């Protein structure tokens, strides 16, 4: 046998982790599931980015804070006595108003400016939303109104290969909702007139204008769609932990997902999210001890970096075509 005590480094990296997976399949399945759930939520965030990037070529740094803002609005409205379902409807309305406001105040004055300018504008938007959010809702963490929204809680557990695998009902809901959302958006983009118009705008502004597509309208639609995705993400993330401004940094987790999946691909965002989610969890459980644990926080970026070397346009990103 290759592996004898004391174990060599090669053995610790390439043999033992897989042996553990094989020996204790229940723990492996549990890890996979948790990675999958985390991945689904990463996918949701990445999806918000992809929507806006597809239609305007802008990397929207504010997506993270939009998640927080949506969740805070929902919780805040409920706190002042609005029934949960009505609060949800009102939050959707708030996201629509936000989309209109962003189009009018941020994007329209900057039309035809280089992408970097728009990117910086989304930074500004981020800090505005942080300040505005804190002013209205206060800075303290809040609890998501999970029960009131009829989101099932509790645990589902079943026996598996001599062990026990536990699944949070909340997580199952998250996975189902995210899948639905993605399916609808994918069809929306590929099959509808507006979807076609969105892709058209992404490719060429002036050509889109010449066939009568209204840029302003398209921007409102994508920012609203991104707002809805942010709301769903906010509810799901909020229900798993809490609603606070700290959630904003999950936006950074979307970066490796986007590098993996490609900035313009909806399926890419999903698969990228899942790979990152699962990779992170599996890495943490099986290889984490080698590095003194805590590799979860940087492994995603490593995966993305390695990936970048081989496929710069991402898994499903549009092929880079350049004529010389």
């Amino acid at each position, binding site marked *: 046998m290759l592996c004898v005590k004391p174990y060599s480094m090669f053995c610790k990296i390439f043999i033992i982790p897989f042996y553990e997976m094989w020996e204790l399949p229940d723990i492996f399945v549990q890890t996979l599931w948790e990675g999958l759930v985390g991945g689904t939520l990463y996918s949701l965030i990445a999806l918000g980015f992809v929507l806006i990037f597809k239609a305007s070529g802008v990397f929207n740094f504010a997506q993270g804070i939009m998640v927080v803002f949506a969740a805070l609005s929902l919780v805040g409205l409920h706190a002042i006595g609005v029934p949960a379902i009505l609060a949800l409807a009102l939050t959707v309305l708030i996201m629509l108003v936000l989309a209109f406001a962003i189009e009018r105040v941020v994007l329209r004055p900057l039309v035809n400016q280089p992408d970097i300018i728009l990117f910086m504008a989304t930074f500004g938007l981020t800090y505005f939303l942080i300040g505005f959010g804190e002013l209205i809702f206060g800075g303290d963490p809040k609890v998501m109104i999970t029960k009131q929204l009829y989101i099932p809680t509790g645990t589902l557990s079943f026996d598996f290969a001599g062990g026990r695998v536990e699944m949070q009902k909340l997580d199952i809901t998250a996975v189902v909702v995210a899948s639905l959302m993605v399916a609808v958006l994918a069809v929306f983009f590929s*099959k*509808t007139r*507006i979807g076609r118009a969105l*892709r058209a705008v*992404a490719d*060429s502004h002036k050509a889109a*204008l*010449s066939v009568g597509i*209204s840029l302003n309208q398209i921007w409102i639609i994508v920012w609203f769609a991104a707002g809805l995705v942010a709301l769903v993400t906010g509810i799901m993330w909020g229900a798993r932990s809490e609603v606070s401004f700290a959630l904003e940094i999950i936006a950074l987790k979307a970066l490796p997902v986007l590098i993996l999946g490609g900035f313009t691909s909806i399926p890419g965002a999903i698969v990228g999210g899942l790979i990152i989610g699962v990779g992170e969890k599996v890495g943490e459980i099986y290889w984490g001890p080698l590095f003194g644990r805590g590799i979860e926080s940087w492994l995603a970026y490593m995966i993305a970096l390695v990936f970048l070397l081989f496929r710069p346009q991402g898994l499903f990103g549009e092929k880079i*075509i350049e004529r010389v």
Partner: protein
Amino acid sequence: MRAPDETTIKAGQTLLSVEGVSLSFGGVKAIRNVSFDIRKGEIRAIIGPNGAGKTSMLNVINGFYHPQEGQITFKGIKRKKMRPHDAATGGIARTFQNVALFKSMTTLDNIMAGRTLRMHKSFFWQLLRYGPAEQEEIEHRRKVEEIIDFLEIQHIRRVPVGRLPYGLQKRVELGRALAMEPELLLLDEPMAGMNLEEKEDMCRYVIDVNNHYGTTIALIEHDMGVVMDLANRVVVLDYGQKIADGTPDEVKANKAVIDAYLGVAH
């Protein structure tokens, strides 16, 4: 929103007129006090040396630029300012000097994008691909296939246009403009950078569009042979000013035009 009553203007009557238009960018005067008209059913050429303001003129008509002075009357409606969206709804389609296509989309999708303004069913039904929306999609698809047949680009239907050679891209762009079923078609150097054969094909398409669909065409072109063959009337710009306007033969004989093109001895 549909275009205002289209039947009021008969062939030979003025479809669009430009009156005293001036356009400047800072200190650069791109167009100075230019007036001309485009009659329904004709092929109108705009020619002139490089930098004469031809493309700017097209951009003004199409609403990309807003002139500082003058006005444009299209189908009897006077406008000082026109937004590109209004121009498109009003029935003005165009192509660009350096092709502007949706490069990552297929030929089919590009041309379908030209139908955007003519599709009205709510996106909810389109999402489900059901009932009236399905009917509508099929109807538009039929129209698009007709255009594809007309331009003989069946073989590249599913190819992302970014991969196509330049000549074919120009053809797809024409197809997208045609899909709008425009009343006035603006072509910005449709034959630029083409070889002789491609040029002849393009000429044939332009004439066919004009004959079959009765579309009024305004085109910018550098190839004088092409212009003289195609155009019913020609307007000549030089340094932003109109220096001649008339039939190809009249323009050819005009002293100012010869000077502009060949230079004047001082």
